[in-house]
Every structure is written in C-alpha cells, then in structure tokens.
C-alpha cells in the first residue's frame, strides 16, 4: 500500500462524514458556539444536527454545556483536546491524498 493510500484508510470516519467535518471545522476556530450558530451555519435540520452532535460527543470530540440565558435554555458546544487533535490529524492525513505531484 503506498503512503497516500495508507493515509486514505487512516482517515477518521467520525470526522470524515461531511456534516460532522463542517461542524468540527466551525468549532475548531472558536472557544465554543451554541446550537443556533451551528444550525444556521451548517444549514442542517435540527434533528440532523442533534444526531451529528451526539455522534461527535459519543466519540469524545465534543463537550456539551447546558445552561440558561435568562429563562431560555442555552446549549454550548466546544471541541475537547481529543477532538482538536483528531481534527489536526485528519487534516494532515487529507493533505497527501490530493497531492497530485507525487503521482
């Protein structure tokens, strides 16, 4: 198996799903964000977004903080250190796959 093919098989399947990849990318540049921000930016349905966030939480990539802002429930999501390193590794693995110069 060549290096780039090996990278392909090493891709993290939890992150590799497009909707989850988008959510992780959105969260990677901020400290935390709430459900509404992720809903608006990802354009997923509420149900779909909840499922993907739960999947990321189960994998240990996401931490969920539930609070109240006044009387309104407020849920914030942030990447865990494990989630950050998994995303960094995913990007590292992804690079050589599209590097056509290596042929």
């Amino acid at each position, binding site marked *: 198996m060549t290096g780039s093919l090996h990278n392909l098989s090493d891709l993290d399947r939890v992150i590799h799903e497009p909707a989850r990849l988008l959510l992780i990318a959105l969260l*990677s*540049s901020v400290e*935390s*964000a709430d459900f509404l921000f992720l*809903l*608006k930016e990802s354009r997923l349905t509420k149900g779909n977004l909840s499922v993907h966030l739960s999947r990321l939480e189960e994998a240990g990539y996401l931490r969920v903080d539930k609070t109240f802002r006044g009387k309104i429930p407020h849920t*914030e999501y942030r990447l865990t250190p494990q989630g950050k390193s998994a995303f960094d590794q995913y*990007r590292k693995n*992804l690079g050589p796959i599209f590097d056509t110069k290596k042929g």
Partner: protein
Amino acid sequence: MDGQIDTAMKRGRGYWFVDGFTEMIAGGLFILLGGILLLRGIAPQHSFLAQFVSVASDISIVKAIGIIAAILVLWWLKNQFTYPRTGFVREKWVTVTQMLTLIGKAILILILPVLGLVAAFIFLPSVRGVLFSMPVWFPAGLGLVLAVLCVLSGEWMGLRRFRLMGALILLAGIVVGVWQLVIGLPNFPVEALQSNSLAALPEVVRAPMAETINRTFISIGLLTLVSGIVFAVSGVVTFLRYRKENPVPYREEA
C-alpha cells in the same frame, strides 16, 4: 476540500463582525478621535473651541470611559439583536504565545516606516527636508500601515469587504498627502533645508516647524476621520444586509 474547511474555520473567526455593530462602533470612535485631532489643528488659538478640544483630548479617563462604554454597548447590542438571530459564539482566548507572535508582527510592520525614515535621513541630502515634508509622507505611510493591517485581518477572518476598506484607507492616506503637497509646505529658509545637522533648530525655523507639526496633526486627523467613515459605512451596509437575512429572532425549543 481543504479550502472549504478553511472557509468554515474563518466563519467562526469573523463572527464578531457578522452584524456590522463592531465596525459601526469602531468607526464612531475613529470619527471622534479624528475630529478631535482635526479641530485641534484648525481651531484658532485661545478660542473656546481650541480650549474645549484641548481639555477633552487631555482627559485620559474620558477616553477610557468612552472605550469601556463602547464595548458595553457592543455587548448589549449583540445580546439583544445578534445572538437571538444567528447564535452565540465565544471567541478563543489569545494565548501568551499568540500574543507575542502578534506583537512581533506588529513591531515588524511598525518598523518599516521607521526604517524608511532612517533611510531617508541617511540618503537624502537634507535631513530637515524629510522632517519638513512630514505632512505629506506621514498620512500616506500611516494609511499604508492601516490598510495592510485591515487587509491581513480581513484575510484571516475571511471578510472580503476588508480588502475594499483597506484600499479606501490607503487611498485616503495618499490623497491627504497629495493635498498637503498641493496646498504647499511651510516656507523654510534655504539654509535650514540644506543643513544636515540634527542640532537644535534655530529661531528662524521655529514657526514653520510648528506649522509643519500642526499640519501633520491635521493630516492624521483627516485620515482617522475618513477611516472612521469607511468603517461606519461598512458597518451600516453589513447591518442592513444582516437584518434583511435575519429579520426575526430564532428560539431554540426547550
């Protein structure tokens, strides 16, 4: 694909500017600062206006309170308007390493005009000629620095409008410099212009030197004022677009 990931990452970074409030408030502060500098330069000496501007600009606590008030107003606006519509984002804290890197880059950017000035002192036949033409090159140089900072921060946050803002600020700096050149620089005696000495200025050049400094303040004031207007207009346009796209608040169901 990596480009799309980068775009998604920039969305979070640029969220602070999504509603235009930050630009409007920063623009307002720039307009105030530019206005004070400008009035300081053009108000007749010993007039009530000159004294008022002098007192207003000298009281640091007023500036500090103004900046804190602006930040509080910004928080309130975002809490009332933005977060209920498009959600809340907690921006990342800047780490010590990032802060040091940022300071290093800022110093590098600020060193460029200083190096340019040093080079001018070394290579130009008249040292004082460089000083005396300050109303021309200072606003152009400052406009360049501000424009570079504006464009770089815009690229980092994925905000293309910052390119236009940077271009307008640079243009404003050049126009102010050219305007100062067109209306003519203060008249200095020929012997003062030919001298390369950095010793104390003789009496004959004191008055034109004071005028040079005053006109440099006017140039900076004008540039700051125009930059403030550019920021404020950009903020208003961004706000109108944001309000059109998000007319009503969204409520997360319990």
